[in-house]
């Protein structure tokens, strides 16, 4: 179990570093399919895993001069109540709806990867 989690993390991070996509689109399916978490628990756990990746990524990008810190922090701060709202919604609606929504999201990201040389999450 632990080795599986470490492998998911390393692979997700490598993909994020290579393609500029965030870790979440890999963390969530990895946690569901390989570790057997249910969809909501996988999403909740993914959010925790994203934090260190984003901290290191933001630090590195600021070194390259690619970070508009003031606006980034402003967006983050303004987003807090909406992130909380999203979590409340996800805990209130049927899990099947979330699974289908998430599947649609990763199909969208996959199509972006196939169509573009500059994909993003």
């Amino acid at each position: 179990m632990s080795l599986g989690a470490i492998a998911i993390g390393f692979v997700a991070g490598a993909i994020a570093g290579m393609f500029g996509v965030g870790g979440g689109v890999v963390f969530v399916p990895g946690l569901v399919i390989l570790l057997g978490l249910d969809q909501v628990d996988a999403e909740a756990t993914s959010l925790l895993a994203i934090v260190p990746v984003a901290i290191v990524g933001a630090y590195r990008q600021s070194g390259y001069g690619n970070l508009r810190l003031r606006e980034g922090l402003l967006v983050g701060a303004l987003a807090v109540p909406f992130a909380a709202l999203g979590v409340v919604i996800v805990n209130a609606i049927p899990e099947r709806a979330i699974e289908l929504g998430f599947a649609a999201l990763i199909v969208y990201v996959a199509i972006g990867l196939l169509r573009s040389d500059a994909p993003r999450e």
Partner: protein
Amino acid sequence: MPRSRTLKLGAIAAAAGVFSGLFGVGGGTVMVPLFILWLGYEEREAAGTSLAAIVIIAGAAVIVQLIYGNVHVGDGLLVGVPAVGGVVAGTWLQQRVPRRKLQILFALLLLASAVKLVIG
């Protein structure tokens, strides 16, 4: 900062926040294109700036999920900490591997994951 710019930042924040909470992702899918289209960011600036926002957004969302008792803290750390090393490895590999082939492979992996999620 002009009022219209602040409003755009607020709209981006609202969309990214709900998206992050709903799907357990950072919200970059929403933020990066909007930073470019609405605020005239360059692609790299958009990606870099979205990471700073993601720290706060994912941090806030995970606190609420902790209150619901849905976070597997051990698994999250076992995934998240090695991921940092993976990012460094990925950035290094980017210069040394056939990127387009890997991109297609990753896209197919995502599509297979989507099928698996749908059929259960």
